[in-house]
């Protein structure tokens, strides 16, 4: 029976492989559609902002001739549909325009910021998963034990603490009192592994707290559900060690809903990174976005929102595909 075995026999797999490809194409098309919709929305929203961006650029007492010149240079004198098509064309070339304040290309700024945000998100993902999965497993296996209760309380706290406040508390404890970890800034890996890691630990923990809490609870309830299943009883009955029952039989199936949540939570992590970057003064995408909003630097706002959207869309895609990979029963016909 294909249901119990993790791998499906050849012929079926080949047929389902085609279905997976079809599914893949469909998902990618949908992702592109979402990106186009987001780009259009961003375009419209940025033009709906009250106030004249050219005036914001030149200053309100600017010479009318200069204002007109700038407007022409930015292409803002053209009709809206023309602006839209030009903007999309520029986007397709990867041209996101220039910062109003320091004239730097938005693409350059984003390329500088992205590695920081991604290392932060990935590192906090690792920390959160390596804490939350074991915690969830322990909670489920030793249900209602002291450990389970303690972990439940911890999860509730993790969900209730604002990310930025966790960051503040961590700074106060580890940077101010114990002075073991730096409170601010980012160092690239090229400066040494420890320099990179030490600057990432606190922000990563701050970013990952709520994600870890959700993940631990999800793992617990998914595993509890699965442990009631017949095949778990069968595995026990045939004399498998409890460890093998949990890790090889139960966990694999329990992970399916957990992975869905991971996708949502990865998005949460990036949102958390936006805040953590601002707490820990890391010049990542999130800090870029907030500074640009406060400076009314609209090209940067546009660019960062689009990049963040692209990251989310890609991650949703990855999760959908992982979903199909981990559960051979799901082939998205």
């Amino acid at each position, binding site marked *: 029976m294909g249901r119990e075995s993790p791998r499906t026999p050849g012929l079926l797999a080949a047929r389902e492989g085609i279905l997976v490809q079809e599914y893949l194409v469909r998902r990618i098309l949908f992702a592109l559609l979402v990106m186009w919709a987001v780009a259009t929305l961003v375009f419209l929203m940025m033009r709906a902002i009250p106030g004249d961006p050219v005036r914001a650029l030149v200053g309100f007492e600017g010479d009318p001739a200069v204002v007109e010149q700038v407007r022409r240079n930015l292409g803002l004198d053209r009709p809206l549909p023309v602006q839209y098509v030009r903007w999309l064309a520029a986007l397709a070339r990867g041209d996101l325009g220039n910062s109003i304040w320091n004239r730097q290309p938005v693409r350059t700024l984003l390329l500088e910021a992205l590695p920081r945000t991604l290392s932060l998100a990935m590192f906090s993902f690792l920390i959160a998963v390596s804490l939350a999965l074991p915690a969830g497993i322990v909670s489920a296996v030793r249900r209602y034990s002291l450990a389970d209760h303690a972990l439940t309380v911890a999860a509730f706290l993790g969900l209730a603490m*604002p990310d*930025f406040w966790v960051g503040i508390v961590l700074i106060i404890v580890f940077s101010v009192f114990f002075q073991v970890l730096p409170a601010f800034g980012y160092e690239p890996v090229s400066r040494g592994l420890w320099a990179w890691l030490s600057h990432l630990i606190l922000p990563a923990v701050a970013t990952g707290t709520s994600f870890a809490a959700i993940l631990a609870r999800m793992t617990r309830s998914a595993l509890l559900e699965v442990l009631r299943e017949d095949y778990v009883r069968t595995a026990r009955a045939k004399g498998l060690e409890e460890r093998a029952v949990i890790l090889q039989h139960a966990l694999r199936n329990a992970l399916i809903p957990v992975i869905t949540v991971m996708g949502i939570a990865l998005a949460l992590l990036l949102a958390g990174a*936006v805040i953590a970057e601002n707490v820990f003064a890391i010049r990542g995408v999130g800090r870029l976005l907030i500074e640009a909003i406060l400076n009314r630097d609209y090209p940067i706002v546009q660019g960062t929102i689009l990049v963040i959207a692209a990251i989310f869309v890609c991650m949703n895609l990855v999760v959908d595909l992982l979903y199909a990979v981990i559960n051979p029963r799901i082939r998205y016909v």
Partner: protein
Amino acid sequence: MSSAVTVAKVVRPHPRTAAGALLRRLLRDRRATVGLAVLVLAVLSAVFAPLLAPYDPQFQSDALFQAPSVRHWLGTDDLGRDLLSRILFGSRISLFVGITTVGLAALLGVVLGILSGYYGGWVDMLVMRYIDLQWAFPNFIIAVALVAVFGTGLENVIVAVTLAFLDDFARITRGMVLALREEDFVAAARAVGAGDRRIMLRHILPNAGSPIIVQATVSISYAILAEAGLSFLGLGVKPTTPTWGLILNDARPFFQSAWWLGIFPGLAIMLVVLSINFVGDGLRDLLDVKEYQGLHG
């Protein structure tokens, strides 16, 4: 005819007795009781902040950076303002924003969800595309993006957070309506000549209530966190208003020397969010709501 009337009675008990019964059952849950008690205290202290606060939250004394003491229970900030008083007044904005935004989001989302689920067709398609689009992004990021467009300030924050949380309600309501639309009591109501509006408001909506109530509870805690986050980033209310996020933002340069400025406002946020989550969990168990699934899910 009588059967339709009976059904209507069964599914829609008197609102006051229903709420009372729900509360009584909720109080059997220890965690929910604790949460509810803390919440009532928080709301009371927000309402009576002018009476409870030992000082005017804007009053600047000479006592700068005082650590917690008998005179200033939670210490003072860089301008000599009493932290306890500021946190008490801050709770007004946090709770107000949390409740109004979720109230508005629930209202608009439920209307969208009902229309979309009940009528189907192009209304449904439009609403679903919108929900799908927003579903792809975390609410907080959407709120930040909207504030980028609307600008900062209390009203804009309320609009941004409302819009960011709207899709959750639309999705849940739509799912419920799709499940309920085919139920016998709806057919019965239609058979005795009830119009669309009556069926939607009187027959479908009350039965879709449980998941919406649970979602609203959860959303309030997230909305409070969102407002705090926005204020902390400087994207929230005006700088002079004391709110929890803003107090923390103001304190950023001083964490090294004045730890209490970094700790207590966050504790206040955590306590309120925690108690709302306790109540939400209790309600979820009580109303037997499984996330995002219809009656038959």
